[in-house]
C-alpha cells in the first residue's frame, strides 16, 4: 500500500515529540477539573504508580519503565541496555523463551519490551477478564522480576544482532543517522547506537546483563502505568506484585553527562549506491524539562513538524517537488535530544534541496513565524487535542511519559494555557537560543554525491 505522505522516519521521530506534549482540551470541554482523573501513589518498594480507570473496553494496558535506556550505556558496552531489555523475555522465572511467548499468546495478550534512549521497560496489553489478566500478569511478573538471561539465548541473539548491524550498515538511512549522531553528540551516550556496534556487542557477557539489570531495574526508580478496566484496589495489588521484588536501591544513581553545544559546523558526505541522497541537518535540541519546551514545540510545528502545513514541506515538496518526505523534529530527552531536519532526494538535486533547507531554517530562526502561522498552529494543536487522548493506548503512553519525566499531574489542565501564551517572539527567542544555523551538522549519504563534494 502506498500513501501520499511518508509515515516512516518522520512519524517515528515526531511521535516521540507528540507524546511528550499532550494538549489541554479545556477550551473544548470547558471543564475546570482534570480531564483525565489520574491517580498516583507509591508502592511499598518506592515505585511510582499512575492509574487511569476506564471501563469502556474489557482490556488493560500495564507498563513498567526504568531509566535504563541506551543513554546509560558505557562507551565500551554500547548495546548493553538494549540487550538487557531484549533478553528479559527470553527465559525467566523457570519459563523458557518459548513458554513465555506461548503462555502470553494463550490468553491473547501482547507482552513487549519498551526501549528509548532514556527509558526501558515492559508493556503488557491484555483482556481484563480475571483469568486472562492474571495469567498474563503472571508471565509479565516473572519476566520482570526473575529474568535468567540464559547464556545460550544471549549468544544467539548477539549473532543475530551483529548480522542485523552489518545489514543496517549497508542502508543509506542508517549510515546517515549514525554519522549524524556521532557528529552531533560526540562521545555522549546519545551519540551511540542503541543496538550497539559489532565490537561492543561481541564482547557482552551474561554478567554484564545481570549487572545492568541489578543497577537499573530498581524498585524506587520504576514507573508503573496502568490504564483500563480495573479497580484501584486491584491496581494497587498489581503494582505491588510487579515491583515488590525488584532489585533495591541500585548503587548507581545513574546520571547522564551533559550534552555539549556544537562549537563549529561539521559535515560528512558519504558515498552509497542509492539513487537518492539521504540528507540530515541538525544539532543538539532541548531537554524535556526545558523552559522553552512549548515555544519550541509550537515553533517546530510551523517549521517542519506540521506535515503539509509546514514551511519546509511547502518549500521543498509543494513548490519544487524535490522530496516525498521532509520534516523537522525535536526529540526532548533527559538531556538535550537531537534536533534534526531530514529528507531524501534524487542525487542531482541534493545541493538544491540542501540550500533551500538551510535558507528556510535560517529565515525561521532569524525572523520567527508570522502571526498567521502561529495562529494556525495553535488552532491545530489546541483543536487537535481530543485525538491525542482518544484511545486507551494513547492515554497509557501519556501516563508513562508524565511518570517518567516527572511532569506535573495537572500537565493536561495547563497545556492549552501553555500553548495559548506562546508568542511569535517566544518562538523566535527560543529558536535563537537553541539553534545556531551557522553551527550545525550536515550529513549527505548516497545519490552519487561524492565524498569530495561540499555539502
Amino acid at each position, binding site marked *: *500500500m*502506498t*500513501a*501520499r*505522505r*511518508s509515515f*516512516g522516519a518522520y512519524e517515528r521521530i515526531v511521535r516521540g515529540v507528540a507524546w511528550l506534549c499532550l494538549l489541554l482540551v479545556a477550551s*473544548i*470541554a470547558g471543564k475546570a477539573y482534570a480531564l483525565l482523573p489520574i491517580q498516583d501513589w507509591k508502592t511499598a518498594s518506592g515505585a511510582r504508580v499512575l492509574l487511569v480507570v476506564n471501563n*469502556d*473496553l*474489557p*482490556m488493560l494496558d500495564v507498563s513498567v519503565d526504568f531509566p535504563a535506556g541506551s543513554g546509560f550505556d558505557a562507551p565500551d558496552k554500547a548495546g548493553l541496555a538494549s540487550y538487557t531489555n531484549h533478553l528479559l*523475555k527470553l527465559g525467566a522465572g523457570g519459563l523458557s*523463551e*518459548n*513458554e*513465555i*511467548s*506461548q503462555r502470553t*499468546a*494463550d*490468553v*491473547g495478550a501482547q507482552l513487549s519490551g519498551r526501549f528509548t534512549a532514556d527509558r526501558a521497560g515492559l508493556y503488557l*496489553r491484555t*483482556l481484563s477478564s480475571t483469568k486472562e489478566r492474571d495469567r498474563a500478569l503472571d508471565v509479565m511478573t516473572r519476566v520482570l522480576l526473575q529474568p535468567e538471561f540464559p547464556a545460550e539465548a544471549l549468544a*544467539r541473539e548477539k*549473532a543475530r544482532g*551483529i*548480522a*542485523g548491524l552489518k*545489514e543496517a*550498515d*549497508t542502508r*543509506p538511512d542508517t549510515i546517515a543517522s549514525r554519522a549524524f549522531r556521532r557528529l552531533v553528540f560526540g562521545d555522549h551516550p546519545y551519540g551511540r547506537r542503541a543496538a550497539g556496534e559489532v565490537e561492543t556487542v561481541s564482547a557482552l557477557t551474561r554478567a554484564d546483563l545481570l549487572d545492568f539489570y541489578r543497577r537499573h531495574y530498581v524498585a524506587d526508580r520504576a514507573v508503573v502505568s496502568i490504564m483500563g478496566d480495573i479497580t484501584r484496589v486491584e491496581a494497587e495489588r498489581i503494582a505491588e506484585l510487579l515491583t515488590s521484588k525488584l532489585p533495591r536501591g541500585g548503587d548507581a544513581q545513574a546520571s547522564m553527562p551533559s550534552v555539549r553545544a556544537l562549537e563549529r559546523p561539521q559535515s560528512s558526505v558519504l558515498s*552509497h*549506491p542509492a*539513487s*537518492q541522497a539521504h540528507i540530515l541537518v541538525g544539532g543538539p535540541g532541548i531537554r524535556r524539562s526545558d523552559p522553552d519546551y512549548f515555544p519550541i514545540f509550537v515553533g517546530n510545528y510551523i517549521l517542519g513538524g*506540521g*506535515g*503539509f*502545513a509546514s514551511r519546509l514541506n511547502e518549500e521543498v515538496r509543494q513548490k519544487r*517537488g524535490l*522530496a*516525498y518526505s521532509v520534516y523537522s523534529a525535536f526529540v526532548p530527552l533527559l538531556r538535550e535530544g537531537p534536533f534534526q531536519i531530514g529528507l*531524501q*532526494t*534524487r542525487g542531482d538535486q541534493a545541493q538544491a534541496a540542501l540550500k533551500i533547507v538551510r535558507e528556510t531554517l535560517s529565515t525561521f530562526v532569524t525572523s520567527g513565524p508570522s502571526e498567521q502561522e502561529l495562529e*494556525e498552529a495553535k*488552532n491545530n494543536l489546541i*483543536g*487537535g487535542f*481530543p*485525538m491525542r*487522548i*482518544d484511545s*486507551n*493506548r494513547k492515554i497509557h503512553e501519556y501516563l508513562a511519559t508524565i511518570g517518567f519525566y516527572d511532569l506535573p499531574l495537572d500537565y493536561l489542565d495547563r497545556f492549552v494555557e501553555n500553548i495559548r501564551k506562546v508568542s511569535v517572539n517566544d518562538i523566535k527567542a527560543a529558536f535563537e537560543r537553541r539553534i545556531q544555523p551557522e553551527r550545525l551538522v550536515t550529513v549527505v549519504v*548516497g545519490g552519487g554525491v561524492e565524498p569530495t563534494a561540499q555539502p
Partner: protein
Amino acid sequence: MRVFVLIWLTALSLGWFSAPGETWAAGSSAVHEYRLDNGMRILVKEDHRAPVAVSMVWYGAGSMDEFNGTTGVAHVLEHMMFKGTPKVPMGEFSRKIARAGGRDNAFTSRDYTAYFQTLHRDRLPLALELEADRMTNLLLTKEEFEKEIQVVMEERRWRTDDRPTALLYEALMATALKAHPYRQPVIGWMNDLQNMRVEDARDWYQRWYAPNNAILVVVGNVTGDEVHRLAREYFGAIPPRALPERKPQLEPDQRGMRRVVVKAPSELPSVYLAFRVPKLRDPEKDWEPYALDVLEGVLSGHEGARLTASLVRGSRLAASAGAGYQGTGRGPGFFLLTGTPSEGKTVAELEAALRAEVRRIAEEGVGREELDRVKAQVVAAQVFARDSMFAQASQMGALESIGLSHRTIDIMVDRIREVTPEQVQEVAARYFGDEALTVAVLDPQPLSQKRRAAPPAGARH
C-alpha cells in the same frame, strides 16, 4: 508491502489492525447503513469514548484497475486529489483540516483508494464538504501535475528502488503472476511514471471517481442519522456515472516452479516463497481461507510459534523467518514464507527448512493447544481493535470496497474458531507443492560496486 494488511486476521500480530468480532457484536454499537439516491453508500459506527470522528471515503478502484503503460496512475491521482478545486485552491484542503485541529491523508492499494480525516466530531461537516467538493471538481492542472509526478518518483526511489527487500517483493509478484494486474506494483513502474501525463490522471479520475463507486465510512462520537443527513447534504447532489466494465483477468494456472534473483546492495540474503492459494469469496461457505489463516498463526502468530521456535531459536538456521497470508482482496491469493539465513547458512538451506515446516504439518498435523492459542489471539485482537477508531473504520471500508459486507468481520471470527486440526493439515498438504510456487532470492551485492548507469529517462512531458 504487508505493512498495511488491513483486515485479515493474519494481521493479529500487528495489534491495532486486527479485526473485532464477537464481543464487538455484543458490546458495542451496531453499524448503520445508508444509500443515497446517487448510489453512494454510507456506513456509520458509533464510538462515544471521545469527542472525535474518523471519516473515510473509499473509492472502489486501485492499481489492479490500471492498464499497461500507465501503472501507478491510481496512486498518482491520489496525490493529485490534494491539488485543489475552484473553491478550495491548491494546498487549502490540508490547511483547512489542520486549522480545524484535524489530520488527513490517503492511501492506495491494489484494490481500492481511500481518503481520511481524523478530527473533532463537531468538524465532521468540514471533512464531508471538502471530500464532496473534490469528488467532482478537481482541477488537475498540468503545472501541478509536473511537480507532483516528481514527488511520486522520489517516493518510488525511497520506497522501492533503494530498498532491497522491496525490490525483492516487487520481483516476486511480477514473476508469480503473468496475466493478473496484481503483478504491477502499486507505486507503478518508474518508466510509466516518467511518461505519465496529466491526461492519464484525468482519465482515471473521470472513470472511477463517482458517488456510485464510493463508500463513506464514519466511526466516532456521532449518530447514524446525523451522518446520513450530512452526507445527503454534501454528496446528495453529485450525479452518478456509468462505471466501466471490469474484465476478470483471471490468472492462468501455474505449471511449475518459477525462480527469480534480485541483485541489490545489501549484507544479508533473503528468500521469499509465494504459493498460490485461495482467497475468501464466500465468507459463509468457504473454509480453506480460514484454515490457511490458522496455519499462518501456527507458523508465525507469535514469537514462540513454529517458524521462530524451530528455525531461529532451535536449529538457528535463520536470523528471521515468517509466514504471511492475506485472505481478503479482489485478486489472486498467495501464502508467503520468508526468511533470512543466519551467517554461514544459505538461502537454499533455509528454503528447504521453511518448506519442511509446512510439510511437517501436512504429515503430522497440528496440536489442539496450538490451535486454541491462535484462536485466543484472534478473539483478544478483536477487543483490542476496538481501542482504535481508525482501525475500525479501516476494517469496514476495506471489506466493503472489495465487495464483502462489513458483517464479514464477525463471520470470519466465528469460522476461524470452528477450524479443525484436520482442516489445517489438509490445506498444508494441498497447496504447498512445487507446481504453483514462485521463489525470489535476494543476492547481496557489495556497496562499493558501481550501479549500472541509469537508462535514459524517456520522453518527458
